[in-house]
């Protein structure tokens, strides 16, 4: 299983903060994103932004990152702390 998290305005816009996906069907971040867009109406635009950031297991990563069961994948808009 892969745990997927959303933060800040992205979470507000999607209306979901957390969901769990099957690891077999989501071998990497790119495929996982495509699956999320295909399975959820209205998510395509929100998850296609060039500024979308992704962290795999709490480390900034990118769409090519491979995933295995137990991984935590987080999507979020550009950070604005500090």
């Amino acid at each position, binding site marked *: 299983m892969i745990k997927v*998290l959303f933060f800040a305005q992205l979470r*507000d816009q999607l209306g979901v903060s957390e969901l769990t996906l099957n690891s077999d069907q989501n071998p990497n971040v790119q495929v996982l994103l495509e699956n999320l867009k295909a399975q959820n109406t209205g998510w395509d635009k929100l998850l296609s932004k060039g500024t979308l950031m992704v962290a795999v297991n*709490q480390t900034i990563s990118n769409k090519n990152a491979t995933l295995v069961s137990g991984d935590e994948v987080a999507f979020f808009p550009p*950070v604005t702390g500090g």
Partner: protein
Amino acid sequence: MIKVQTENFNQQVEYDRLREASNTGAVVTFTGLVRDINQGEQITALTLEHYPAMTEKALTEIVEQAKSRWSLIDTTVIHRVGELQLLDQIVFVGVASLHRGDAFAACEFIMDYLKTEAPFWKKETNADGKSYWVDARETDQLALNKWNVE
């Protein structure tokens, strides 16, 4: 020392800790504050959301990068989360070193990275009571260029 906390922090306490080592010749501190006006809006309050499992990890990695680039004696990063008021302290970065050049560079480097890689998000409330997420500033992304990293 790295801390993510809702509580306020004290400049003197953090500074005193940073100047303890007898070979410290320079201490540089940065403090970020809640301004009254941001991006043209009159602000009345600020909420800081974060990704709890990741924030300390991200800050630790940024500090390790700074330590690998400059000769540092001690570093402190404190970032607050939750509800903040006007003029409240948001973030503290302090660096102690033998020489000022290292302390200045490392302190600014840590802030520049924190601004683009640490998972915190600001939500502001304006004078009309409206809340909205703060947009990322392009200049924060550009600020990274001076450190020559990909």
